[in-house]
């Protein structure tokens, strides 16, 4: 039995190393200026995902057989003083293994699907590079044992998601939507960063086991109740809300559908959108420390679920409809976490991620089948279901419809109250700066577009 921890460490490292190997291969090809062929890329993806998945499954078997509920692997420890240190550490437990197996399984499926779906697409290599970044981020976040490790994975997932939203980069709207999503992500990442800093203050380190005790998830030691814990919990909830598109950050979700279908499936149907729920599961003992915090989580979850249901009713494209359907379930999962049903939430998450991946991947061919069906019967299939909305008074119906169509006015509020004043303020400062410098220099600054496009010096 003494060999089991060593074996687990080796397997844990293999899980992390497999996607890193994939990313490293792409990076090496970039450095030596070699373009990998489609079959080579496909084989590399499959090899790394399968290796990681087998290692994760083996780790699960070893843990069950050896009766080990939790195993920690420390990769780097930048200890400066006992109260000032950063640690790169991973943990193998029920939650992390379940999520990493899910991530590797779905990424394997999506990888195999994408090699065919994106065949001869101009951005084929770019897609798989971003896919590799996403995989590294997802594995890192899933197995993280410290908040710094989680943050590293979290950011990688965010960046790869955004760049995949902008995948069809010749069109104007994907990069624009990608940037909007990035802004929301960064805004909520501030919250995660602050939570990390506060964890150092509360615990003297970023380790989750310092926060919740040595017991394996979901059990935990009793936590001291302090105002810091509630604040910490709120910060984590905001971070989770951004990543999982919970209200009031739901506006970015339909924008994320600009990316290719496989990325939509794996990111917004299955893994990325559940990462917020995963974070709340990981820090669930913090939620338990305050009834108000738990209630807050339940309310956010239910509001998100209701909003997503209503907004989803009026979507006219299948990916947006699926995205809102996904969000409805994510809201329920969040509410379950707030209510303290950890196992239920985990099972719900796993099942929902698998189902939604299937639906997203089926979406393009389903439309094709639908068209064939319509052609065969000569008309559109009749929808005879009576919707409950039709029982509402007409003015309420209209208001609800407008609300759903405008996606709760969340984007327009963000524009009106944050983005425009921000830009106006800094543009005004910029103009003042230019004017002052022009006055001192005695010359006027020429806008860059009016300048000679090939100046004499760079």
């Amino acid at each position: 039995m003494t060999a089991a921890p060593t074996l687990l460490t080796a397997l844990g490292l293999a899980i992390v190393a497999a996607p890193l190997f994939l990313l490293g291969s792409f990076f090496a090809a970039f450095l030596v200026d070699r373009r990998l062929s489609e079959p080579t890329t496909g084989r590399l993806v499959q090899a790394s995902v399968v290796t990681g998945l087998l290692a994760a499954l083996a780790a699960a078997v070893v843990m069950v057989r050896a009766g080990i509920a939790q195993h920690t692997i420390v990769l780097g420890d930048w200890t400066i003083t006992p109260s000032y240190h950063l640690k790169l550490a991973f943990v193998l437990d029920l939650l992390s293994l379940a999520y990493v197996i899910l991530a590797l399984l779905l990424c394997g499926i999506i990888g195999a699907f994408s090699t065919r779906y994106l065949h001869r697409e101009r951005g084929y290599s770019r897609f798989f590079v971003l896919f590799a970044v996403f995989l590294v981020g997802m594995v890192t976040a899933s197995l993280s044992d410290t908040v710094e490790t989680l943050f590293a994975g979290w950011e990688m997932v965010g960046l790869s998601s955004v760049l995949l939203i902008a995948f069809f980069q010749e069109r104007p709207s994907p990069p624009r939507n990608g940037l909007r999503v990035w802004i929301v992500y960064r805004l909520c990442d501030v919250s995660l960063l602050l939570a990390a800093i506060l964890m150092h203050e509360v615990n003297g380190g970023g380790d989750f086991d310092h926060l919740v005790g040595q017991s394996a998830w979901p059990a935990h030691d009793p936590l001291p109740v302090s105002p810091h814990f509630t604040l910490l919990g709120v910060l984590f909830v905001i971070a989770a809300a951004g990543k999982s598109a919970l209200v009031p950050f739901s506006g970015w979700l339909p924008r994320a559908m600009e990316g290719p279908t496989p990325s939509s499936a794996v990111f917004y149907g299955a893994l990325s959108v559940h990462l917020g729920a995963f974070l709340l599961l990981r820090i669930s003992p913090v939620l338990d420390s305050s009834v108000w915090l738990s209630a807050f989580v339940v309310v956010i979850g239910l509001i998100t679920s209701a909003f997503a249901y209503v907004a989803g009713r009026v979507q006219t494209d299948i990916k947006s409809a699926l995205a809102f359907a996904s969000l409805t379930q994510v809201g329920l999962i969040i509410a379950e976490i707030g209510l303290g049903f950890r196992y239920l939430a985990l099972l719900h998450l796993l099942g929902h991620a698998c189902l939604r991946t299937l639906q997203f991947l089926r979406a393009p061919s389903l439309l094709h089948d639908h068209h064939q069906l319509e052609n065969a019967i000569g008309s559109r299939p009749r929808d005879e279901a009576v919707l409950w909305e039709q029982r509402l008074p007409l003015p309420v119906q209209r208001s609800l419809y407008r609300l759903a169509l405008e996606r709760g006015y969340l984007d327009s509020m963000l524009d009106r109250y944050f983005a425009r004043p921000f830009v106006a303020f800094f543009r005004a400062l910029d103009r003042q700066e230019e004017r002052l410098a022009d006055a001192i220099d005695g010359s006027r600054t020429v806008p860059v577009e009016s300048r000679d496009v090939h100046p004499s010096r760079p």
Partner: protein
Amino acid sequence: MNVAALPLLELALLLPWVGAATVAFVRNPPAAARFSLAFLILLLTAAGAIALSLGATGGIRNRTFAIDEVSAPMLPVLVLLHLLTLLGTSKARVTPALCIRILLSVFVGLAVVTCQDPWLLIAILALATLLPFWELRSLGKPFRVFALYMSAFVVFLGIGQFLVGTGNPALGFGLIILALGIRGGIVPLHGWVPRLFQNATYGSAMLFVLPLMEVAGAIRLLLPGAPAASLNAASIACLVTAIYGGGMAIVQNDVRRFYANLCLSQTSLVLYGVMTHTVNGLTAALCLWVSASLSLAALAFSIRAIEARFGRLSLDRHHGHYEQVPGLAVSFLFTGLACVGFPGTVGFLPMELLFAGSIDHGLWVSFTLAIAAMLNGIAILRAYFALFTGRRPSMSVSLPITRIERVGVVIIALIVFAGAWLPPSIVASRHRVAESLLGVTPSPGDH
């Protein structure tokens, strides 16, 4: 061979002068570039040897210049920064005068970080302002803004040091802080930075701004004697600059002004760490000094390569250059993200150290730092999307990445990603330096 026995410090300080003198006799620009490159590589070797031999020698001391734990790691960084600048200058635009300026600039950098005598340090910092001034004059560009700010910098620094030496340290240190604030582009004393990037050549502007000589000045002239109240006020100004620079970088439509404001935001974080006059803050600042200089220089490398192909670019529309220069697009993205401390890059650990250390000053400070990081991250991606996404412009000539640019990109990639795994011993050594600079006795549990 005993490396410690070699006169490495003298060699490092002499080589740039020998290089500049040699290049002055060369009329052929490509030959001048080759000579300069050879001298910079030699210098990099010497600087690397100095940094590596520090543990064995315990430092190299001359009368006025010294290699200690503050300066040793900065020497290769400064040379690398100049090397990248030379590599990033397109062949058609290299002139012997530019090569001489680069070599003199590297001397200034090395002299500033190794100089132990305050008055000599002030003299070198003052002389360093002449290099961009010389260029602005020779290009016929407006120079009054630069001249005004730099005159104020030199005057305040000189008077401040005089007052510190003559029994009025409070006012003296205040003037020194003001002078370093001007040099570091701390809001509202920053007006010269965007202007310099707009009017001077990119290379000269970045060589003047990126070595962060104000940080060396602050370490040598302010610590540990400066009054806490003055340093606290300066640290708040640095925080304001971090936010201001980030916000301004987001709304810019000119790539150079975007870069200038990004520099302001990032470099103010380094100065913030110094001004906190706490061990944790200073440790983070010493690490961030290295990572910010290198990653900003690396980002500039990509921007200059793009400008060399397509001219000065605006950020108010999408240019679609990804398909033409994918290598530069990737390089732009990862160097930009390294600047803002993205995980897996050279900037991550220093930024994390800065955040972790900031809690000593209250959660609002951490919040401000996090907001600054957020704004800079948004600015980087906005610029990336503007430059590289959009409809591909039709061009009759192919503009692939050149061999020399690829060498630069490979060096940058290695710096950005290999630098992310900064050994714990290096961070611990920075912590020791911070303790010694602040005159703090190490606690028994440390390191």
